[in-house]
């Protein structure tokens, strides 16, 4: 996935001179995850910019650039370090269209590596997407595959509205596939059915997709046919794909590594009961991270949903309950 993102950034920079990339260590070092590897050499330090250590400044300055006609892509190094920029995002980036009645817009991409599973130090493993989902005027996307990572990134750059682009750190180097070399976009707002099934709908996104697909395999071995939906876009949400699947299966589990309280699973559950209540055979199940501080590395497997845990909970709560 790291290479797909690098490729996407390269195409975005070469295809539109208004595009620039800014963030801490994105230039000389090519990013702490090497997502912008070699781009400074190719496009120069005026377009691939090493910023001072100032997240609020990075987003605020990029916002000014976007309003003035540029197409900035910014990288906030880890979700755990994105919070100083929150004021800029919630107070300005997301609402400039509204308060200027479309006269000013902020077409910009805010890339945020997120999530656990790599044994990182404190503050480096958080999955706090809910704080971004809750902001009107923002789009929030999360790829789970390299092909989507590139396509969604390019779609985000083209998008007329600001997009928070969440990158699952754990998938950077562990999820690989052949990615088309040409320019293409993956539409924002469309979920993907990764696996068809008839008994239960498993809904997830980002790094939890691999665990969820693994759980679907396990469930198949136990005679349960699971349909698996990769949301890809959290805002706007592809409600139709979810509802169609639930009408078919009657059972739903949402999987995410973010804490349960205020998490996206609650939103999905609400939408499902609003739109497909009479199709439900069982209450919507949430398999999520705990409402607790993300633990240090030796305990993180206790925190993150995994294949066996998802399969176990789906089976016992949705089929034996």
């Amino acid at each position: 996935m790291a290479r797909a993102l690098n490729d996407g950034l390269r195409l975005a920079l070469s295809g539109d001179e208004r595009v620039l990339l800014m963030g801490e260590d994105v230039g000389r070092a090519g990013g702490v995850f090497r997502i912008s590897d070699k781009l400074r050499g190719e496009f120069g330090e005026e377009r691939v910019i090493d910023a001072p250590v100032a997240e609020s400044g990075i987003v605020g300055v990029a916002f000014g650039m976007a309003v003035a006609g540029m197409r900035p892509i910014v990288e906030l190094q880890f979700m755990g370090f994105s919070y100083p920029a929150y004021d800029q995002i919630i107070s300005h980036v997301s609402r400039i269209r509204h308060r200027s009645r479309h006269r000013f817009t902020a077409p910009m991409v805010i890339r945020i590596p997120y999530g656990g599973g790599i044994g990182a130090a404190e503050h480096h493993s958080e999955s706090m997407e809910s704080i971004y989902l809750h902001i009107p005027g923002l789009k929030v996307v999360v790829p789970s595959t390299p092909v989507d990572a590139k396509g969604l990134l390019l779609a985000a750059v083209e998008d007329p509205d600001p997009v928070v682009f969440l990158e699952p750190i754990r998938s950077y180097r562990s999820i690989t596939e052949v990615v088309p070399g040409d320019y293409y976009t993956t539409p924002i707002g469309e979920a993907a059915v990764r696996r068809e099934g008839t008994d239960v709908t498993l809904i997830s996104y980002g790094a939890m997709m691999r665990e969820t697909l693994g759980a679907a395999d396990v469930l198949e071995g136990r005679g349960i046919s699971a349909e698996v939906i990769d949301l890809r876009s959290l805002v706007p949400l592809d409600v139709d794909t979810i509802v169609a699947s639930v009408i078919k299966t009657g059972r739903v589990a949402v999987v995410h590594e973010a804490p349960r309280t205020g998490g996206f699973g609650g939103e999905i559950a609400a939408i499902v009961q609003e739109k497909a209540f009479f199709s439900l055979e069982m209450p919507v199940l949430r398999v999520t991270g705990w409402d607790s501080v993300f633990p240090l590395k030796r305990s993180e497997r206790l925190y993150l949903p995994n294949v066996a845990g998802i399969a176990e909970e789906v089976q016992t709560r949705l089929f034996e309950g």
Partner: protein
Amino acid sequence: MSDLLRIIGNGADVPDQPIPEGLGDKDLVAIYRWLVLLRAYDERSVALQRQGRIGTYALYWGEEATQAGTLYALEETDWIFPSYRQNSIGILRGVPPSVILAWWRGYGGDVGFYDTRHFRTGPICVPIGTHLPHAVGTSWAAKLRGERTASLAWFGDGATSEGDFHEAMNFASVFKTATIFFCTNNQWAISTPVSRQMATKTVAEKALAYAMPAVRVDGFDPIACWKATKDAADRGREGGGPTLIEAFCYRIGAHGTADDPRLYRDEAETEPWKAWEPLSRMASFLDRLGVLDESGAEKIKAEAKQTIAEAVTEMEAIETPGLEVIFDNVYAKDRPWMFIEGLEELRSVGQRELVKPLNAGAPADDTEIPEEGV
């Protein structure tokens, strides 16, 4: 480096300056002992990380003077707030080194977090510069309570770009708190050189905007760090307000064990700075003074290595915390209902703890989980 406060010369063309009042031979040896202990901890930690026995580690090789000399100037009742670069400063206040090693190993709970109140040492701050307002708060509280307590926070040159740095500086100067802002300007924020971090020539001059006194010191000189900190703390206690100290040095090592500086700087650049590194420099100084000879220094080094070796043994004897570690220490009392349910869920058969590898094909618990980034 001519404008820097410096006490220890190089034994050649840069002369030694008189030892500041308040430091006797015993103190000089004690500071050396601290330098050596920090170095032993740091070098061993890098080795442990390479062997997969602890996780990603933020090294500080060469920056021991900014910690040992500085801390020695403070009272035990003063608050200190380390960033990750001063991660083991607590051991100089009595925190068992095994506890900090356990934190790097990835143990939370009671075995990985030290008692911040008892040691008057803030938790190791990982976000950049966010602990600076805290140091203002503790020194302000002391002032309100009529205590003669100062607070000191360490941070790097990169942190001066964060809003929290400026907000903390402003609060401290407006409310005249006994806060010491100790900036270790090692000239690199991961890959960003100080010349791209700020347009000012020094960090110290930023204090002008806050009507705050500032001093630049040789950050490789523990006695200069002691002197600047002592003066700042004394003035703060007397109601003179905060001080910004810029300890000018150089990041000789990598930002952390996951960082490869060859990607962004010529490593030959580090060579001239190594001549100034504090340990051998302090040892030569003490030898010139006739306070400690080579065999005395060697003995101190051996003791430090032994202390750290014992800490490693202790750290590795710590058992991985149980399931409760997820739900403990989050709220003051009584686990909320979702924690009670969660614990039941974790305890039940087939749940998360029974499946060890996080990544497909990854080895089990004792082996290092692949790491990326910093």
